[in-house]
């Protein structure tokens, strides 16, 4: 096997950073950084990175695995929520539909040229005057006959 030079390593690092490295090249890089002690300063961070990558993750102990599997998982309790929610909705709608709206109980609103009158008495008077106008001026013939009968 040819001796790996610093120049080779720099080339392999460029390939590694470009994501072009093969498994073999990665192995070469790993072996180089773990075996060479006196590295140039700019290569030290790469050495640390390859050391970390080379570390095998610790497998959990049997006790830890037992503890993990014996931890009780939370059961979902929202199964009972839907009937309650549905009942609440039905009750709310029954209340809305069966209770007569309070606003209808006592209202006296008037609009004059698009402007709302807040005075209930004025609104009432306007409404009654409109009715009087209809009922009184409705039949001219009737009015005339009434007038002549009075005379």
């Amino acid at each position, binding site marked *: 096997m040819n001796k790996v030079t610093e120049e080779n390593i720099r080339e392999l690092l460029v390939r590694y950073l470009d994501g072009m490295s093969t498994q073999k090249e990665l192995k070469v890089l790993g072996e180089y950084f773990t075996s060479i002690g006196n590295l140039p300063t700019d290569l030290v961070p790469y050495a640390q990175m390859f050391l970390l990558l080379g570390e095998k993750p610790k497998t959990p102990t049997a006790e830890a695995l037992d503890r993990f599997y014996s931890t009780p998982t939370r059961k979902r309790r929202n199964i009972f929520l839907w009937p309650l929610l549905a009942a609440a909705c039905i009750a709310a709608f029954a209340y809305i539909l069966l209770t007569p709206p309070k606003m209808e109980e*006592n209202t006296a609103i008037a609009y004059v040229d698009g402007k709302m009158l807040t005075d209930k008495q004025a609104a009432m008077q306007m409404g009654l005057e409109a009715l009087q106008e209809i*009922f009184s001026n409705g039949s001219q013939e009737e009015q005339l006959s009434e007038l002549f009968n009075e005379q």
Partner: protein
Amino acid sequence: MKHLLITLMLLGIALPISAQKGLHINEIFEGCIIQKPGMHKTLIKGESLEPYKLTVLHTVKFTADRSCRDKVEALFSKDMGECLSDKDNLELEYHDGHLYYAVVQIADTKNGLHRYICYQCRIHAKEYDITLAYMEGKATLADLRKTFKKK
């Protein structure tokens, strides 16, 4: 479920809005025929109408041109034709082939309250002063005549 809830909520909002009287003249009350700035409108409900044996009084007054008068007259006549309670429960007067005055008792409400629609159209300087009214209550046609006819 979430969609169902939203639908129910929208339905709950929509019901009170659509719970109108189901009459064609509602278009006039709502300002679809005459622009709201030109209207004098009143809506009275509740205790203040008790002396008149009424529960709802809705009136509207406006000045209209010929085409508008024709539309209003057509809508009123439609209601008269579709909802008339009894042939004896109406007073009509025509001038020059157009409705001049009308007081019509239409079908009662589900609660057994009487309903009336009233119309008056007076010619005034080539324009038409129209007064419309909608009433609900226990009052009979004779009661209304007696109460609102000026002496």
